């Protein structure tokens, strides 16, 4: 049993006495704006590894004038969009931003960035900063 625990520790490389960051983003996809448009979307998974609920009230990016959390909804065959003012992630849970569902709407890009940085805040407290390469929206 001890060797199994050790193996898991090595595999995750997250033990070693360090604490796991409370909020972790994985699978980040940032699509480029379609030519002529000034908006695009970002998708990712946000994991709350802490024992407390995490709430995200603001997302910013130096490459975009404005970032909003949105959710595409399908109600009786009608595609609708809802703005998420505050996203809560329960302790030890994940929230997925994916095509056709929750997404970050990135608006007013400054130039044509190849890499986009995203910062997630709870009020004025910075929770997480990540960056990802921009991918095409048509592949």
């Amino acid at each position, binding site marked *: 049993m001890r060797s199994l625990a050790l193996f898991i520790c090595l595999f995750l490389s997250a033990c070693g006495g360090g604490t796991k960051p409370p909020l972790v983003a994985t699978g980040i996809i940032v699509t480029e704006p*379609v030519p002529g448009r000034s908006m695009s979307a970002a998708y990712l998974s946000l994991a709350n590894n802490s024992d407390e609920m995490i709430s995200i009230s603001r997302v910013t990016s130096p490459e975009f004038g404005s970032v909003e959390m949105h959710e595409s909804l399908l109600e009786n065959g009608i595609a609708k*969009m809802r703005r998420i003012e505050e996203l809560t992630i329960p302790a030890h849970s994940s929230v997925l931003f994916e095509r*056709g569902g929750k997404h970050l709407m990135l608006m007013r890009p400054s130039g044509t960035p190849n890499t986009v940085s995203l910062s997630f805040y709870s009020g004025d407290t910075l929770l997480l900063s990540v960056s990802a390469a921009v991918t095409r929206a*048509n592949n």
Partner: protein
Amino acid sequence: MDQSGTLVNADTFRGQWDLLFFGYTNCPDICPTTLQTLATVKRKLVEAGSQTPPRIVFVSVDPERDTPEIIGQYVDYFGADNLAVTGDPAEIMKLTTALGIYFRKVPGDDANYDVEHSAAVLLLDPDGSFSALFSAPQIVANYLHDLPIIMGDR
């Protein structure tokens, strides 16, 4: 009218199979995702040997903002042969009503607004008549299964 300014009428939809999707270019998620899904369907049909793959037609439900130039650039990004339709809001309303497609402007922050709209894709046959409806979510595999069966009848 289409992206080149040519008037769209019943003849526009004759002579080829058409997949019609209704959306708007200020939509960052559903609209590009659906157009890319349809582009993938078309590419896979061609790869499988289809001589008459359907044309992808994007009809704007936001004709006030979507000029022919804007929708032209938009659909070109997803494939060279795509058709884009916009125009006088009353004409767009006539077209969508005839096809049973709903849309409505939803006010957002400041001057911005969203448009909620039917997420279905319509298949028109080479006579321009309604042939099939693909309800959302749009899945590539559904098309690859259904389209050869439907189009093979003709």
